[in-house]
C-alpha cells in the first residue's frame, strides 16, 4: 500500500502563485505587442503583490512540516520568502528605469520569476533532491539573465564564465548528494541525519559528500575559493541582474546552508564548522582587500559582496540559534543597503552610460538626493552606527564571541575598518571632488520613491532593532 501524503496547498500558496505567474508571463510575452511592453512590467509587479498577499495569508494557516516532507513550510522560511519577494519587486523597478534592457523585457521577467521560484524552494528545502533542483532553477535563470544583452560581448562573457563555474559547482553538489545517498540510502534530510547520528565513526564517504555539498553552496554565496566568478560577472552582467545575484541568490544560498546545518549536518557539525570558520576568514579578507584597487563600481560591489559573504559564513560557522537570528537580521540589513546602492548604480549608469567610479565625481552637486542615498547605503554596508548594517555585523560578531571563536571575531573587526576605507573612497568622490559635468541626473518618481523607501528601511531597521529581532527570534 502506497502512503500518499496530504499536500498542504494553503502553505504552498506563494510558490503556486509564482509558478502560475511564470505561465501567465510566458503567454503574455507572446501576446502583448512590442509597443505595449509596460503592460508586462505591471503584470510582473502584480504577481509579486499577489504572492506577498498569499504569503501573509499562508502564514495564518500553519502546516505540519518537517519530518520527511520535501519542503519545510515554516515561519523561518516565510520570513526569507518575504525578503525575496521584496528584492524581486525592486529588481522589476530597476528594469523600468530609462535605458535598461529595453528589448524583450517580458522574457526577462519570466526568467526573474523562475529564479524567484528556485530561491523560494531553496529557503524551505528539506530534501537533497529539491536542494539540487532549486539551486539549478535559480542558477540557470541567472546564467541566461547574465548573458541577457546579446549584443554586448561583456555580458555574454559574464554569462559564459558564470555558466562554466556554476555547472562545475553543481557537479560537486550532485556528486556529494550521491555520496550521502550511498551512506544513508535516502535523500530526505531526516534520513541522512539519522544515518549520521547512528553510524560511529562517521563514514569517510559521508564526510566527503558533506564537503562537496559545501563546495556547491559556497559557490552560490561567493565564498573563497569559489569566488572567482564574482567580480567578472558583476562587471559584465546587466545591473538589475547583478542586484538579484547579490541579494536573492546569496540569501537563498545562505538559508539553504542554515537548513542543511540544522536539518542534516547537526549530528556531525564538527565536519563543517571548522572549515566554515577558515573559509569565512579567507572570504572576508579576500573580498575587502580585493575591493580597494577597483575602479569600476560594479566590480567594487562584487568584492564587497564577497566580504559580506564572509560575515554570513561566520554566523553559519558559529551554528547556534542566536547566530541564525543574527544572520536573518544581517540579510535584512544587507538587502536594504545593497538594493539601494544598486538602484543608484542603475540610475547613474543609465544617465552616464558607464559604471566607472569616475562618474561618481561630484555627484553631490549634480544630484544631492542620489548622493545622500548612496552615502547612507554605503555607510550601512560598511557597518556604521546607527544604520542597519552596523546592527547586523554587531549581532554576528557577538554570536561568534559567545561561540568562542575570538580569532575569527578579530579578523571580522579588522575587516570592518578595511571596508570602511573603500566605501569612503566612493563617498569622497561624490562629495569632495569636482564633477565632470554640471548637468543634474534626472530621477523618475518611481525610482525616487523606491530609493526613499529603501533608505528609510536602512535607518528604521538600524534604529528600532527590537521589533525586527523579536519577530526573527519568534520564527526560529
Amino acid at each position, binding site marked *: 500500500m502506497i502512503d500518499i501524503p496530504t499536500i498542504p496547498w494553503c502553505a504552498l500558496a506563494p510558490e503556486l502563485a509564482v509558478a502560475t505567474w511564470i505561465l501567465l508571463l510566458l503567454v503574455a510575452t507572446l501576446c502583448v505587442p512590442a509597443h505595449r511592453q509596460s503592460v508586462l512590467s505591471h503584470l510582473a509587479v502584480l504577481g509579486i503583490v499577489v504572492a506577498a498577499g498569499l504569503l501573509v495569508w499562508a502564514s495564518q494557516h500553519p502546516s505540519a512540516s518537517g519530518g520527511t516532507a520535501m519542503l519545510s513550510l515554516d515561519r523561518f522560511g516565510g520570513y526569507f520568502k518575504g525578503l525575496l519577494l521584496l528584492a524581486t519587486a525592486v529588481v522589476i523597478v530597476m528594469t523600468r528605469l530609462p535605458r535598461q534592457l529595453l528589448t524583450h523585457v517580458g522574457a526577462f521577467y519570466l526568467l526573474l520569476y523562475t529564479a524567484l521560484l528556485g530561491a523560494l524552494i531553496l529557503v524551505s528545502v528539506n530534501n537533497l*533532491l529539491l536542494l*539540487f*533542483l532549486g539551486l*539549478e532553477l535559480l542558477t*540557470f535563470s541567472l*546564467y*541566461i539573465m547574465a*548573458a541577457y544583452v*546579446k*549584443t*554586448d*560581448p*561583456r555580458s*555574454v*562573457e*559574464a*554569462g*559564459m*564564465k558564470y*555558466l*562554466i563555474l556554476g*555547472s*562545475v559547482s*553543481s*557537479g560537486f553538489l*550532485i*556528486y556529494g*548528494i*550521491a*555520496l550521502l*545517498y*550511498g551512506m544513508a*540510502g*535516502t*535523500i530526505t534530510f531526516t534520513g541522512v541525519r539519522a544515518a549520521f547520528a547512528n553510524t560511529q565513526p562517521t563514514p569517510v564517504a559521508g564526510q566527503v559528500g558533506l564537503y562537496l555539498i559545501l563546495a556547491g553552496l559556497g559557490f552560490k554565496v561567493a565564498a573563497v575559493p569559489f569566488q*572567482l566568478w564574482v*567580480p*567578472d560577472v558583476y*562587471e*559584465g552582467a546587466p545591473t538589475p541582474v547583478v542586484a538579484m545575484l547579490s541579494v536573492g541568490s546569496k540569501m537563498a544560498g545562505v538559508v539553504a546552508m542554515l537548513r542543511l546545518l540544522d536539518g542534516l549536518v547537526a549530528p556531525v557539525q564538527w565536519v563543517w564548522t571548522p572549515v566554515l570558520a577558515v573559509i569565512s576568514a579567507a572570504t572576508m579578507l579576500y573580498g575587502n582587500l580585493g575591493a580597494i584597487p577597483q575602479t569600476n563600481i560594479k566590480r567594487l560591489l562584487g568584492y564587497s559582496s564577497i566580504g559580506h559573504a564572509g560575515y554570513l559564513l561566520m554566523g553559519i560557522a558559529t551554528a547556534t540559534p542566536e547566530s541564525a537570528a543574527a544572520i536573518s537580521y544581517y540579510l535584512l540589513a544587507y538587502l536594504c543597503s545593497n538594493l539601494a546602492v544598486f538602484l543608484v548604480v542603475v540610475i547613474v549608469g543609465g544617465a552616464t552610460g558607464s559604471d566607472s567610479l569616475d562618474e561618481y565625481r561630484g555627484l553631490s552637486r549634480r544630484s544631492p538626493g542620489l548622493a545622500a542615498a548612496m552615502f547612507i547605503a554605503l555607510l550601512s554596508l560598511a557597518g556604521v552606527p546607527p544604520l542597519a548594517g552596523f546592527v547586523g555585523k554587531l549581532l554576528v560578531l557577538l554570536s561568534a564571541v559567545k561561540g568562542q571563536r575570538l580569532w575569527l571575531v578579530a579578523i571580522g573587526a579588522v575587516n570592518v575598518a578595511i571596508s570602511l576605507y573603500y566605501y569612503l573612497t566612493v563617498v569622497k568622490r561624490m562629495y569632495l571632488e569636482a564633477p565632470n559635468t554640471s548637468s543634474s541626473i534626472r530621477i523618475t518618481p518611481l525610482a525616487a520613491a523606491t530609493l526613499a523607501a529603501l533608505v528609510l528601511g536602512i535607518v528604521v531597521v538600524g534604529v528600532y532593532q527590537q521589533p525586527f529581532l523579536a519577530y526573527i527570534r519568534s520564527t526560529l
Partner: protein
Amino acid sequence: MPSLLFSTPHLAWLMISPTHYVRLSAVLFAIGLMGLMTRRNVLMILLCIEVMFNAANLAFVAYARAWGNLDGHVVVFFIITVAAAEVTVGLAIAILLARQLKTLNADEVRLLKW
C-alpha cells in the same frame, strides 16, 4: 548471479558489485574534473561537465541497486533533465560567444579581468 562462472569460488573476485560501479564513477568524476582544468575549448569544457554529471548518475544507480530502493533512480531522471537544460543554455551562450568574440577558446575570452 547463479552463473557457473561466478559461483566458482576461486573466480569470485571477478564478480562485479555496486562498489565497482561507485569506484568507476569516482574515476569518471576525476576524469571530468581533470579535463575541465586542462581543456581550453568551451565545448570541451561543457562536455567535461557532462562527464561529471554522469559520474553522479552512475553512483546514484549503483547505490540504488545496493540499497534496493528507488530514490536513486528517481534522482537520475532529474539529473539527466537538468544536464540537458544546462548544456542547452551552455551551447546557446557558446554561440553568442562565437558571434561576439569570434573565438571559443576560454583563454582568449578576457574582456573582463579574469
